[in-house]
């Protein structure tokens, strides 16, 4: 808002503006001042630069950050961080002004209009699509569509993709910091050969630092430091705007097919950015456009807050600034009708000083000449340095006559108090301040000097005192001086040629004096510079020498003698002869030559001065670079120191740990092993004692066994062998019995099978009989005798079954008994005492073998038993099947019985 309220006043440090850009400023009625041509000042809102890459100096010179002034660069920036930190917010190459887009971007920049949608922000663009991102890592599909559209419009899609990826990662980083909110809304569209991608998101606490920190040109491990820079470098034009009312950030990238726009002349715009604070307000007048608009770029000039008039501005601008400002001339880029007024504001020797340059006016040739001079003689960098030199000139003036700018401020105060009606209007005060004579200012400076106070510190009381006590005297003196000069002025000189010559002489002498003084000041400046920067100003030394050499004050002195001679003659005789007239003419010629030479010298000295400044700037940059490198090295050193200290600390720790371990080990060696050994020895001794005891026991046992063996000898063994043989025989007999039983069972099963077969046969026979009966039933009554026969057979079968079951049970019980007997024998074999004799051993082995055999037999028998059990089960199953068959047969028989009866009933 503040930015827009201020009338636009641009300081042009480029030297020569492109005609298109010049036309743009004329058409928009924007004041642009070139300091090379005019030393007029204004409350600058913007400074246009070209080929400048370090803006710290400009920032210091023009208080950009403090006074909210912004830099517009017409060339690509290498160090975007430096540019943005120093309040730079527009980079737009001259090439952009060849097409429509340049003036459109400038309009947007100066007027500050915009909106959320692409239609609001860039009204002439046709929207091609939009999408929303809620997950920055899930954008592939949208990007594919976007790239496809870009291909369709013929835009370099690789750049677009790089831009998108890096931008979204940058915003994702902001989101991570809590400085951006979801969703990120994207809109893309095209206008003629330009493709645009716009995104916007909510951002509550965004600061300029969040932008600048990501503009680093160095590719490092921390990607977030250069994301935005890569995005910016991938777009032809990058627009970063902020809307503080709704806390939203709008980022637009433009890509053009225009071949003139290359990497070197890419553009950048930061709207509503402010250093160190939250972004400034973005001017928005509710500009909403149609969703899709093909209309040409609209004229937004109505929205622009123009400067009142060029003359008013000039009045505001033309502040009295010491003797140097007598050469004042302002470059007003305005085709306003106030040209005359502006020219009248020019002070000092209006005859000699070039006319104010009006870009669009009645004298275009003059301006062109001026531009050519600037173009030919001074480079763009030099222009900046010229500005700086002017600033330094001012400084030198300050040295002579105090702080001039401060005097102005106080002068306004005085002026305001002199004319009370103008107190309220600051502008009027300023205009009054312009009219205050130098005498008052110098008087004020002297007054302040007497008080030993800087002018800034003068209070209202002091100023009042100054007004009451000193001001009347100063005014009196001024009036007296004026009277004196007016008295001296020849009133009737115009008619006489001698008087004319006298006047010319006087004027030339005055001019000469002024030039001399200028020369002196320049020389003093050069000396000051020499003194201050002796090391890096070798060229400056040469220049100053040249200046000193070429100053040629001798000629002036001889001319002075001549001049005095002629003056005396004119005063005495008031007549000059031809020779003298010729001499006078020669003198005048020499004078004019001298003036020309002085001017040339002045220009040269300026050039040299500029060169010096350039060198100074270069050296300053170099120094800065070296300082940075030094800092970096220092940092490296610090880091290495830190790392070394850490390493040392670690090693110290390790050493201490090792020492501790050593100590512990030594302690343990000193104390614990002996104890352990003692314990071990004790244990071993105990074990030894136990073993001895066991040995004794075994010895006793052996002796007892030997005695036993001796006493019992072979009788017992024989008996035992007999017993075992007996048992063995018994077991064998049992096995044989079981085998016989098994054979019997097998035989029985064979019988059973034969019986089953016979039963089956019987069944078949019965079935046949039933069939016969059925067939007979239809004709005859069934025989009554067959049913009892079947019953008898069934009973017999059941009895047989019962017998078989009983036998099975018996055999099972026998088997169980046999198994138990076998287990007992095994136990008894195990419990047999171990013999000490060889004979007994042989017997034992024999017994063992026999036992083995027995166990094998047992296993075989068990297997046989299992088979027998299986067979019995089979038999049982068969039995049940047979029983079922029998039941069926019974039922069938009953049916057969009942069926003929029914039939007989029915028949009856």
């Amino acid at each position, binding site marked *: 808002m503040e930015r827009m309220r201020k009338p636009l006043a641009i300081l042009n440090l480029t030297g020569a503006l492109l005609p298109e850009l010049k036309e743009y400023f004329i058409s928009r009625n924007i004041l642009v001042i070139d300091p090379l041509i005019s030393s007029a000042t204004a409350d600058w809102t913007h400074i246009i630069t070209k080929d400048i890459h370090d803006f710290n100096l400009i920032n210091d010179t023009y208080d950009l950050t403090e006074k909210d002034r912004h830099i517009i660069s017409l060339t690509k920036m290498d160090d975007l961080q430096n540019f943005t930190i120093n309040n730079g917010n527009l980079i737009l190459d001259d090439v952009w002004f060849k097409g429509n887009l340049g003036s459109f971007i400038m309009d947007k920049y100066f007027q500050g209009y915009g909106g*959320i*949608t692409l239609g*609001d922000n860039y009204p002439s663009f046709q929207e091609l699509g*939009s999408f929303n991102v*809620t997950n920055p890592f899930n954008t592939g599909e949208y990007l594919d569509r976007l790239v496809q559209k870009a291909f369709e419009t013929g835009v370099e899609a690789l750049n677009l993709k790089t831009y998108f990826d890096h931008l979204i990662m940058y915003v994702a980083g902001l989101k991570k910091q809590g400085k951006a*909110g979801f969703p990120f*809304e994207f809109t893309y569209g095209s206008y003629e050969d330009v493709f645009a991608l716009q995104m916007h998101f909510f951002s509550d606490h965004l600061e300029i630092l969040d932008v600048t920190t990501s503009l680093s040109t160095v590719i490092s491990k921390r990607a977030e430091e250069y994301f935005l820079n890569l995005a910016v470098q991938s777009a032809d034009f990058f627009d970063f705007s902020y809307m503080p009312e709704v806390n*939203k950030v709008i980022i637009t990238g433009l890509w053009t097919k225009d071949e003139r726009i290359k990497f070197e002349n890419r553009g950048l715009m930061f709207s509503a950015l402010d250093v160190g604070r939250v972004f400034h307000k973005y001017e928005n007048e509710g500009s909403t456009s149609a969703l899709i608009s093909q209309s040409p770029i609209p004229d937004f000039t109505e929205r622009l807050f123009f400067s009142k008039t060029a003359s008013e501005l000039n009045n505001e601008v033309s502040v009295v600034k010491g003797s140097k400002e007598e050469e004042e001339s302002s470059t007003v880029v305005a085709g306003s009708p106030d040209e005359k007024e502006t020219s009248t504001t020019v002070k000092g020797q209006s005859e000699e000083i070039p006319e104010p340059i009006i870009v669009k006016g009645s004298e275009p040739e003059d301006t062109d000449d001026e531009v050519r001079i600037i173009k030919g003689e001074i480079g763009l960098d030099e222009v900046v340095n010229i500005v700086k030199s002017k600033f330094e000139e001012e400084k030198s003036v300050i040295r002579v006559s105090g702080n001039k700018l401060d005097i102005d401020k106080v002068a306004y105060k005085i002026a305001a108090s002199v004319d009370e009606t103008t107190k309220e209007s600051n502008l009027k005060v300023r205009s009054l301040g312009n009219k205050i004579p130098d005498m008052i200012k110098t008087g004020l400076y002297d007054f302040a000097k007497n008080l030993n106070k800087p002018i800034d510190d003068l209070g209202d009381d002091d100023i009042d005192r100054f007004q009451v006590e000193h001001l009347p005297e100063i005014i009196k003196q001024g009036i007296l001086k004026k009277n004196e000069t007016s008295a001296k002025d020849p009133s009737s000189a115009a008619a006489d040629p001698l008087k004319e010559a006298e006047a010319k002489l006087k004027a030339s002498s005055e001019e000469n004096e002024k030039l001399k003084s200028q020369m002196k000041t320049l020389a003093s400046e050069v000396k000051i510079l020499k003194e201050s920067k002796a090391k890096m100003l070798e060229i400056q030394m040469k220049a100053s020498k040249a200046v000193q050499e070429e100053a040629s004050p001798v000629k002036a002195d001889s001319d002075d003698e001549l001049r005095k001679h002629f003056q005396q003659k004119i005063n005495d005789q008031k007549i000059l002869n031809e020779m003298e007239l010729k001499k006078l003419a020669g003198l005048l010629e020499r004078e004019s030559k001298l003036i020309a030479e002085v001017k040339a010298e002045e220009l040269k000295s300026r050039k040299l001065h500029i060169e010096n400044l350039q060198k100074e700037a270069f050296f300053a940059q170099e120094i800065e670079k070296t300082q940075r490198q030094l800092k970096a090295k220092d940092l490296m050193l610090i880091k290495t120191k830190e790392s070394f200290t850490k390493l040392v600390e670690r090693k110290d720790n390790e050493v201490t740990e090792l020492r501790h371990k050593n100590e512990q080990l030594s302690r343990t060696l000193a104390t614990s092993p002996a104890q352990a050994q003692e314990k071990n020895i004790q244990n071993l001794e105990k074990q030894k004692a136990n073993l001895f005891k066991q040995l004794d026991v075994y010895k006793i046992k052996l002796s007892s066994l030997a005695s036993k063996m001796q006493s019992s000898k072979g009788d017992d063994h024989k008996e035992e062998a007999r017993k075992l043989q007996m048992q063995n025989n018994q077991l064998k007999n049992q096995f044989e019995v079981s085998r016989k039983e098994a054979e019997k069972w097998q035989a029985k099963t064979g019988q059973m099978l034969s019986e089953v077969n016979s039963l089956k046969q019987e069944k078949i026979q019965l079935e046949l009989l039933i069939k016969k009966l059925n067939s007979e039933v239809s004709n005859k009554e069934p025989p009554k005798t067959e049913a009892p026969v079947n019953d008898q057979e069934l009973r017999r079968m059941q009895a047989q079954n019962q017998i078989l079951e009983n036998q099975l049970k018996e055999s099972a019980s026998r088997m169980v008994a046999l198994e138990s007997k076998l287990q007992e024998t095994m136990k008894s074999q195990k419990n047999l005492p171990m013999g000490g004799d060889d004979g007994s051993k042989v017997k034992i082995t024999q017994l063992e073998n026999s036992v083995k055999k027995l166990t094998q037999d047992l296993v075989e028998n068990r297997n046989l038993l299992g088979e027998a059990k299986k067979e019995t089960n089979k038999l049982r199953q068969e039995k049940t099947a047979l029983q079922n068959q029998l039941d069926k047969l019974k039922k069938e028989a009953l049916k057969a019985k009942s069926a003929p009866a029914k039939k007989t009933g029915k028949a009856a």
Partner: protein
Amino acid sequence: MQQQKPLLTKLPIKDLAKKIICDGHLFLFSGERKFYLMKPGVFVDPAFIKKYAVTNPVFDFESVVNLEVKEKFTKHFKELRYLQFEKDLRLKCSEIVKEFYQTYSEPEHFLSFALACHEAFCVLPLEDQAKMHETDMHLFRKALYASAFSIIVGMANDFYHYLMLKDFYNLTFSLDIGLCASSYSYYVAEACNSENRNPGSGKKHLREEKASQIEMDVFHNHPQKSYQYLKDTPILSYPELAEVCLYQHELTDGTGFPRGIMKGQVSSWEAIVIFADSLVEITAEYQFETSVVPYLLNFENQKLKDLPVNRVYKKLCLAFSHFQAMKETGS
């Protein structure tokens, strides 16, 4: 057409107590008289349950909700919740929009969809819902229907993420929670309706009705109060979205309230919430028993003059017409 007789079922009070929102008409027979107790889409007030629990009555209940429709959308929302990839999300959302279009092109009660949405997305504390109901049961019902609309409008406007849609729902639901004050009155509700229909007319309406200063204050401050409520209650997945409360009654020319912000600065997601909110009014008349799609397609409102809202509405219509075109061509 033969009018179908209402299908009355018996609903014991313990079954009614299980419901958060009444999904039908609730009656009580006392002697020979039938009392109409509850409308569909109304919050089941715990005080009501407490009052009737003493006598343990069995109500006559006529359901308006199509359980098939409700289950269908509930299933869709559940599936949407666990999808991860953008394409899957987009396809699912377009499927839901298509389903919505097909279902609500025919007469079908909107409550089925609203209940499915409420089940899937609502995270507003029950006491706050009860507070809205206590202030005005129509206010609650408006919030219920408007928030359900926000889901379908959001999907039609390329917002596919469950969390984002959930936030849209809860934002729309609590957009007018700032109206919940003791001095809320019929006039305030009417002013809100008027403001929704014709932006900038709310305050005029209140003046015409000679509303008290307190009522004026309630109406003027409700966006700020709603915003404050959302700031204090952590129900949003993306808390920054709460800002939309402040823009609901802002006008393009900067004459809106409470701050007078230009509407050119409203994002599309904000417009979704604002548009959804303007689709339903605080009134007893709205039942949404008929087909909703024609209602949406023929919607006319002064709010549509605002560019972001208009964009949102156009996208919704585009989503519907796309399916309509598909249906007509048979492709």
